[in-house]
């Protein structure tokens, strides 16, 4: 899911940074507007960034690549607008410490994964409040599932549109589509996990779920 350095043309990387800068600014402004005391949500964002950072180390070999949990949906429903900057920070550390992803592709990777978190949050919010345990479970499942699939679709689309002329396009295309398909089991698992976490939080501490904009 993390696009490494050297895979994308320079213009795409620059566009990724521009988009990430804009979304980070919008996210922070929206969070400032929503919370009078941002320290409450910053502490939550730090813990969730740690979870996102660690999750990428659980890898499951599903040829032609290995896949890992992404947690975009969970980030979205717990952090709301702040899921985007939290994912950006975690991706930076993944690239800096382990070369997982890359610095030149940090903007693009942030857009695919952070943008998916925001969209997954939108799906979660679309469910009517007061729909009970079952409704929260369903909303959480859809958010978790969509978080993975949207990120996989966005990453695949970017890779498909930027296949360089010196590689065999049919082989690369088949590999990218297989990579996207191998995320379906991850999306299902994350959907179940996110749904269960959402239901648990709704029972124990509903304030930790971002149910409004």
């Amino acid at each position, binding site marked *: 899911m993390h696009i490494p350095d050297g895979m994308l043309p320079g213009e795409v990387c620059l566009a990724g940074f521009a988009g990430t800068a804009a979304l980070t600014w919008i996210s922070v402004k929206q969070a400032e507007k929503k919370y009078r*005391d941002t320290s409450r949500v910053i502490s939550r964002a730090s813990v969730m960034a740690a979870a996102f*950072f660690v999750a990428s180390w659980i890898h499951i070999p599903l040829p032609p690549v290995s896949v890992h949990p992404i947690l975009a949906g969970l980030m979205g429903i717990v952090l709301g607008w702040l899921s985007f900057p939290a994912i950006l920070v975690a991706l930076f550390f993944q690239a800096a410490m382990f070369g997982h992803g890359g610095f030149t592709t940090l903007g693009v990777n942030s857009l695919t994964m952070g943008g998916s978190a925001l969209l997954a949050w939108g799906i979660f919010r679309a469910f009517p409040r007061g729909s009970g345990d079952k409704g929260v479970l369903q909303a959480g499942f859809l958010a978790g599932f969509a978080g993975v699939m949207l990120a996989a679709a966005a990453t695949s689309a970017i890779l498909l549109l930027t296949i360089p002329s010196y590689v065999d396009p049919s082989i690369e295309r088949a590999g990218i589509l297989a990579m996207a398909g191998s995320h379906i089991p991850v999306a299902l698992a994350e959907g179940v996990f996110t749904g269960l976490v959402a239901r648990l939080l709704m029972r124990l501490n509903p304030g930790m779920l971002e149910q409004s904009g």
Partner: protein
Amino acid sequence: MRSPIASITLFLVLLTGASPAGAHGARVIWEFRGDSVFVSAAFDDGMPMDSAQVTVFSGAAPSEPWLTGFTDDRGGFAFLPDRSESSNWDVQVRKAGHGDIVHLSLESDTVNSGSGGGLSALQTVLMSACVVWGFIGTAFFFASRRKRV
């Protein structure tokens, strides 16, 4: 808030310690075998990047592919560089959007790796733990500041 943070901290520390030492980035290393250069590519969980597309660029014309090919079942690829053309070469190994680029200097005689890592399991776990602790420390800082206010 403190109790959930402490629980999540414990969970993350355990997860960091228990997780395998490797993600799904790519690691490409190269070495001389006689006059040839042998490139070996693997995902950094150790799975070989078999049938990955390899593109070799000469330092004399870095934007034009000098040679293209595929890795074998073990992620290996060998080629004979034209030393009269350049002593600097770049090799890109790519599979399904994953991969790496390594820079080869023919004047060097050591094994070299790309950006994919080469860290031991202990180093990886320690580095992960340090980053996670940084995040958790930030969380504790803001949580305690809020209580004081």
